[in-house]
């Protein structure tokens, strides 16, 4: 039995509902070729290193599966067709890699935009000691009052 993983890049407009239907379609395709799905994960939205199809952001997904040596060619070509033809508008990039039996299934992935804590302008300014620039700080400051001597 050979183990494979396919990393694919989807357009940023791909919703979570659409991803679940995409996942079930992939699972069905793998089952048709007598394979077994190990995992299908949605990594989340990422800022891409360079624009792909004029998109600066994209959603990554990773699917891992297992298939016998006799049926692997059929499954791999079917998956390629699936990404390149059926979901041609949504899947921007895909890459299939053989998984070694010796290595574990654990992997590290970069932090997505959804994993990062949401920050607004005031939080950013506070973290970088620039509180004076924030609008709320300027509003709370008391107005400068000239003394009677200066007025005269």
């Amino acid at each position, binding site marked *: 039995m050979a183990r494979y993983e396919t990393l694919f890049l989807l357009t940023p407009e791909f919703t979570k509902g659409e991803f679940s239907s995409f996942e079930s379609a992939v699972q069905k395709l793998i089952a048709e070729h007598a394979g077994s799905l190990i995992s299908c994960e949605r990594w989340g939205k990422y800022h891409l290193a360079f624009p792909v199809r004029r998109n600066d952001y*994209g959603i990554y997904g990773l699917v891992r599966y297992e298939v016998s040596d006799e049926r692997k060619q059929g499954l791999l070509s079917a998956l390629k067709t699936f990404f390149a033809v059926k979901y041609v508008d949504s899947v921007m*990039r895909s*890459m299939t890699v053989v998984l070694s039996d010796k290595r574990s299934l654990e992997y*590290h*992935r970069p*932090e997505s935009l959804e994993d990062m804590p949401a920050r607004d302008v005031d939080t950013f300014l506070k973290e970088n000691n620039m509180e004076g620039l924030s609008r709320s700080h300027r509003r709370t400051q008391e107005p400068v009052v000239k003394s009677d001597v200066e007025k005269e």
Partner: protein
Amino acid sequence: MSKKMKLKISTRLLKKKNKRNGFLSKQCRFCAHEENLGLMDYKNATFLRSFLTERGKILSSRISGNCAMHQRALSCEVKKARGMALLPYCAPHF
């Protein structure tokens, strides 16, 4: 009497350098610690980014200290990551 084989100039210079800076010579981090091999993966863009220059070029093994085998494997993983837009081919605005 057998003649002593003279080494190539590059090997002689390398031996001389290592003799001089024996305690400073870099070790391949993947050969020294096997657990680092698991980090060398095209999906692990944060780890692979440390092997790129600010312009996005792959650092030579002379700078990174990798051995030839792991340098080849590393460059292969970086190129895979570049294809999937996890790493840049070149830095922007250059």
